[in-house]
């Protein structure tokens, strides 16, 4: 276990990642500009710890935090894991429930092939060993939204195990410092989701909706290789993108398709691990990072003031920004695991073990699925860097924001402008506007085609880059005008007529004799001032390099 020393203690090594909150569909908080709330949140943590770091007490040990995650991922499938009821978010209550999901007597589980394939694909993408034989178990607990009184899961022999997930973090202010990190994956197991409870405190009752009961989940168990909230959030974001690339889950945290439980403890490096707490049901990346960092700090404070950490389950109160003890867990909860008697072991095949007379409908072939794996995010990034010559961190941003890569590629396809110019416009201008108004890429009023047209005008030097910004602002208003129409209506095209420009230069020189004098007296700033004056006189329609050339000629510099 290589737990690196808690980062909070080193305020100088702030992690500056070009992070754009994954859930751009989540309209929480007020985001202004491309700098995310989260980065700001981090810096405030860093400031907090600056205080402690500046006056280290003698004999004080450093603390290291150890974070492990359990991630529940809802499989993207038409029907549930063991029944033919539909999987759909926000349907009328109890409309997507089969007799099996309601646990009526006499019903039996029938495994959904799609869920098995999704598990195998996810396991392969996460470098896991796929178990050719896995089995199902019952995990018992009492909860009203679990009508059978047990959940079918894979405790003893999961479908996939021993994998790893690689993710990248940027360190320091210089973007060049990029670190690749790995978190080991203990196992991936197939299991059922539970129903949903709505607590009506007023009438002291609980309303139960079983639509979600029995939906296929992948539980991805990470080894405790993470050391802070931010790292955990980045690892989960990477996993989320892999799942979305695979199509095995939509992994939308706002709709509960990806939920995270975090196990957290702190200890002094070199000493045994501390008692851990579990923070349950973290359903946004921002809260995940916040909850973990809060819990680490709480444990350190508790231990330093002579207290002790209880092995307990806590939940994150996002309004208060702290974790609170959650469930009554006096005594160890006994899940009474037992083999699921209604399901024989799940056997998977590969090219070598495939029986000749096998019914293809009944066979899941690991090798076949491996061949069908789509391009994964890490490969996509490498390809972008290679194909378009963009910076690695730009490739991260393009993938981080939902739909941005598709937008970028559509623009590239339709424009003559260089990829670097496109990257610049997409990542700076477009993303800035989107963030300002809290819009998803798909909601952008400027279409890829419109931006491509604008960049063509810019590329052919028909307009200046400041005019292009103006055109973009017009396009953003979305009144259906094309870039060319806006350019001609507002007379934004660059002055192509050299004679007219020369006249304009002459007129400007005539009306500003003092500036001309300064230029002649070799004041280096004066020429720029003169260029600026000519540009203003041209209503920003003149090319500054051309103006400079004419002026220099006229002033015979």
């Amino acid at each position, binding site marked *: 276990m290589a737990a690196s020393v808690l980062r909070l203690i080193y305020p100088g090594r702030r992690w500056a990642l070009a992070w754009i909150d994954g859930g751009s569909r989540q309209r929480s908080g007020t985001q202004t500009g491309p700098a995310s709330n989260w980065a700001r949140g981090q810096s405030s943590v860093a400031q907090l710890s600056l205080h402690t770091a500046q006056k280290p007490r003698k004999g004080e040990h450093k603390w290291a935090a150890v974070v492990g995650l359990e991630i529940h991922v809802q499989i993207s499938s038409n029907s549930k894991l063991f029944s033919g009821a539909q999987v759909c978010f926000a349907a009328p209550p109890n*409309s997507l429930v089969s007799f099996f999901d309601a646990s009526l007597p006499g019903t039996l589980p029938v495994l959904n092939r799609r869920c*098995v394939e999704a598990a195998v694909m996810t396991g392969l993408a996460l470098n896991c060993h796929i178990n050719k034989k896995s*089995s199902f178990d019952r995990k018992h607990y*009492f909860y009203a939204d679990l009508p059978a009184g047990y959940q079918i899961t894979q405790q003893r022999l999961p479908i996939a195990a021993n994998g790893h997930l690689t993710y990248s973090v940027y360190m320091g202010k210089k973007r060049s410092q990029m670190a690749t990190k790995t978190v080991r994956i203990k196992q991936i197991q197939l299991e059922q989701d539970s129903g949903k409870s709505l607590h009506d405190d007023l009438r002291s009752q609980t309303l139960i909706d079983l639509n979600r009961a029995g939906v296929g989940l992948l539980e991805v168990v990470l080894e405790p290789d993470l050391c802070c909230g931010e790292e955990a959030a980045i690892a989960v974001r990477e996993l989320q993108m892999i799942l979305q690339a695979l199509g095995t889950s939509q992994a939308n945290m706002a709709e509960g398709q990806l939920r995270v439980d975090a196990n957290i403890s702190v200890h002094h490096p070199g000493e045994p691990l501390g008692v851990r707490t579990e923070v349950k049901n973290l359903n946004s990346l921002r809260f995940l990072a916040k909850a973990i960092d809060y819990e680490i700090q709480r444990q350190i404070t508790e231990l330093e003031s002579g207290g002790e950490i209880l092995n307990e389950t806590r939940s994150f109160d996002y309004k208060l920004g702290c974790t609170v003890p959650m469930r*009554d867990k006096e005594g160890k909860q006994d899940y009474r695991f037992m083999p699921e008697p209604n399901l*024989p072991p799940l056997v998977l095949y590969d090219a070598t073990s495939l029986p000749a007379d096998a019914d293809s409908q009944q066979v899941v072939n690991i090798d076949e699925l491996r061949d069908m794996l789509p391009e994964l995010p890490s490969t996509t990034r490498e390809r972008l860097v290679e194909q378009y010559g963009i910076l690695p961190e730009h490739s991260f941003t393009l993938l981080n924001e939902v739909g941005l890569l598709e937008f970028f590629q559509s623009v590239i396809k339709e424009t003559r402008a260089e990829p670097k110019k496109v990257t610049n416009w997409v990542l700076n201008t477009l993303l800035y506007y989107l963030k300002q108004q809290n819009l998803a890429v798909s909601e952008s009023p400027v279409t890829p085609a419109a931006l491509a047209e604008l960049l063509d005008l810019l590329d052919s030097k028909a307009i200046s880059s400041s005019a292009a910004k103006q055109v973009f602002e017009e396009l953003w208003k979305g009144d259906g005008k094309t870039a060319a129409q806006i350019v001609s209506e507002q007379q934004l095209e660059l002055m192509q007529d050299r004679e007219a420009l020369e006249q304009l230069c002459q007129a400007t020189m005539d009306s500003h004799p003092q500036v001309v004098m300064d230029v002649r007296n070799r004041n280096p700033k004066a020429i720029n001032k003169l260029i600026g004056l000519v540009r203003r006189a041209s209503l920003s329609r003149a090319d500054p390099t051309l103006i400079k050339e004419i002026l220099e000629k006229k002033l015979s510099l």
Partner: protein
Amino acid sequence: MWARALRVRFRTPLDRGRGFASKAGPQEKVQETGQGTHSPRLALQGADRVPAAKIEHLERLALVNFGSREAVARLEKAIAFADQLHAVDTDGVEPLESVLEDRCLYLRSDNVAEGNCTEELLRNSHHVVEEYFVAPPGNISLPDMVNKTPSPTAE
């Protein structure tokens, strides 16, 4: 499961033939039941009474009310009955998980074929609000727990 159940039945007479004292471990004491069955009766030390605190905890978890001393006694009897399994020597025996162990696990294609039977399902519940089942408040967070003891429901 079958195999194990059979073992219990068949082994007991054999053991009896060899004598109890040699076989019974330190905590297990196999006795004659005197109830006319061949299954052994096992008295685990300290397992015959369930402490009141444990009963309370179980009641809260399961949202049931044992209600009377009689019901608790029935629970204790059930535990004692199940504890007989501990008398079986399973050393070196691969557990049988399912009688279907050697069968292929049937895989269903991912089609929607069930559901849309809200009304029928809700007919099983004697308390319904709109299209929801109604349950008593279950495992709620600690601060809320103080004023709310779950009302007795299922027996």
